[in-house]
């Protein structure tokens, strides 16, 4: 083992401090908000989505074994869905507020799995990703007090797991696109934008332009395949900023609110605490510069005020 590798191993095995604490807290907040958003928008349809006289088509037995039968019995009661939703909401709220994060993530992962397994047809990629991330988030520790070394070890391992999962998502999505003729020929964005289900009519017209269509297709592929490398370079913040813009675009164009928000939350988790400090310093200096520009106009405002006073 080289000294570098030995140091890396020691860093993982006996870490001295938690990594990505701010990012982990951001991810908890986004995940909690996402779950609350889903509960509140879907509450009027709760009985229809998950209740006895609704459309549930999945079985809980595959996920929960014999307990699944008990859960199904509960969900088949008139208020069963609401009991699960209340527990789910409380867990989501705790996650959003960053209180008892590990326990909240565990409860949210369980209730979210119950709802997803009960009616799989309403889920999207965002639900799939969050379901997996919630398992890892059980081990995150974002408390203000510095925990013991074992606790730090598990927090860091959870962070590595989330990073590995995001890399896998991007790399799989990118390489799968390389295998598709629609993507390599640049027609994919045009085809998606023509569908009523996914796209606003404006984007349908926009992606008829060959330059835009090919740029959007290729930029997506290059970004998704390049992401696992870029986040280990000095261009990480830029890469994440590009990813956030990409997902905001997906949110507006395709309306995949939940998928986009989970991806944005996950990307924000990849920033280290030092990155957040750098961003904060940069942000403060931008605000200061704006303040100085405004200051230049101050005399005019002063003059106006004195004119008003004279009148």
């Amino acid at each position: 083992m080289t000294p570098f590798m030995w140091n890396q191993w020691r860093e993982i095995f006996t870490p001295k401090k938690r990594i990505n604490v701010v990012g982990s807290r951001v991810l908890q907040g986004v995940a909690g908000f996402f779950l609350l958003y889903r509960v509140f928008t879907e509450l009027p349809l709760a009985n229809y989505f998950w209740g006895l006289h609704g459309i549930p088509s999945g079985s809980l037995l595959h996920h929960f074994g014999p307990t699944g039968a008990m859960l199904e019995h509960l969900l088949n009661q008139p208020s069963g869905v609401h009991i699960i939703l209340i527990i789910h909401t409380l867990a989501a709220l705790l996650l959003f507020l960053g209180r008892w994060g590990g326990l909240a993530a565990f409860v949210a992962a369980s209730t979210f799995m119950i709802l997803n397994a009960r009616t799989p047809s309403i889920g999207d990629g965002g639900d799939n990703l969050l379901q997996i991330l919630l398992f890892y988030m059980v081990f995150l520790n974002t408390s203000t007090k510095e925990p013991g070394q074992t606790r730090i070890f598990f927090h860091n391992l959870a962070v590595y797991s989330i990073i590995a999962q995001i890399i896998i998502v991007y790399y799989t999505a990118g390489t799968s696109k390389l295998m598709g003729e629609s993507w390599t020929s640049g027609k994919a964005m045009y085809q998606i934008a023509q569908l009523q289900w996914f796209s606003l009519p404006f984007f349908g017209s926009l992606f008829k332009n060959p330059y835009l269509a090919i740029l959007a297709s290729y930029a997506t592929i290059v970004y998704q395949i390049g992401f696992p490398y870029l986040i280990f370079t000095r261009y990480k913040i830029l890469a994440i900023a590009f990813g956030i813009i990409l997902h905001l675009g997906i949110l507006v164009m395709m309306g995949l609110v939940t998928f986009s928000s989970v991806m944005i939350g996950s990307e924000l988790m990849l920033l280290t605490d030092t990155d957040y400090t750098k961003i904060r310093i940069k942000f403060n200096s931008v605000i200061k510069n704006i303040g100085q520009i405004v200051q230049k106009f101050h005399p005019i405002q002063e003059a106006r005020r004195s004119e008003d006073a004279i009148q």
Partner: protein
Amino acid sequence: MKKNLVKLIKFGAILIFLNHFLQTIFYLTPTNILKEDTKLGTLNSSYMRPYFDQVWTLFAPTPVRTDTLLLVQCLPKNPDSKPKPKRWVDILTPIWKANQRNRLTAYDRFSRTIENPLRDIIQIPFHLTKAAKKCDAGDKSICEDVKIKRKKHRDKSIDNVRKAASVYCMNYMQQNSLSFDEVSRIALRIRVVTPPPWKDRYDKSKATQQDFDLGVHSTVQTKAPLIYRSMP
């Protein structure tokens, strides 16, 4: 003693971490000889499903190219009443339009309850694609199994579509103060709309549509949200 136990737990956790991500990477690789009918493939599937099941192809390799619409007619109990040619109502487009007007709603989720089973009716479901490919490649032993599973899945999907489409008839009944007998049957039709290909992108007349009748079924008395109330 305690120190050694902690070390052991940490080693165990790292091994679990490595195993988990190796399994995940293997699970997500394209179909290959190591996954097909091998012990390793079976072991991998049973580890990943259902808790870590994941698909990240995201509109790849071939993105969805068609809009699949559902047309319905609510019919009375009388078996003599048949669907009329000009009375079909498209129940998905208004949901999509409402979702486009306001993205922060559950309309998208609601549309998925219809759209996803509809796609499972007209396409080979994802979990049967590998077996169907083998059948197409000449493996006759698997064809019968694919046929039976596909029929079972199709019947289940039609039932799911029937349940979801019944919401429209239940809303119609509530809005017009009708009795259930007046909407107790529902006629279903799938319309597949294919936008013009790239070379004809400015010519709307090149879009094609194909209809498939799914027959007349009994309406399900679902706990129907009044989702179609404010829609034209």
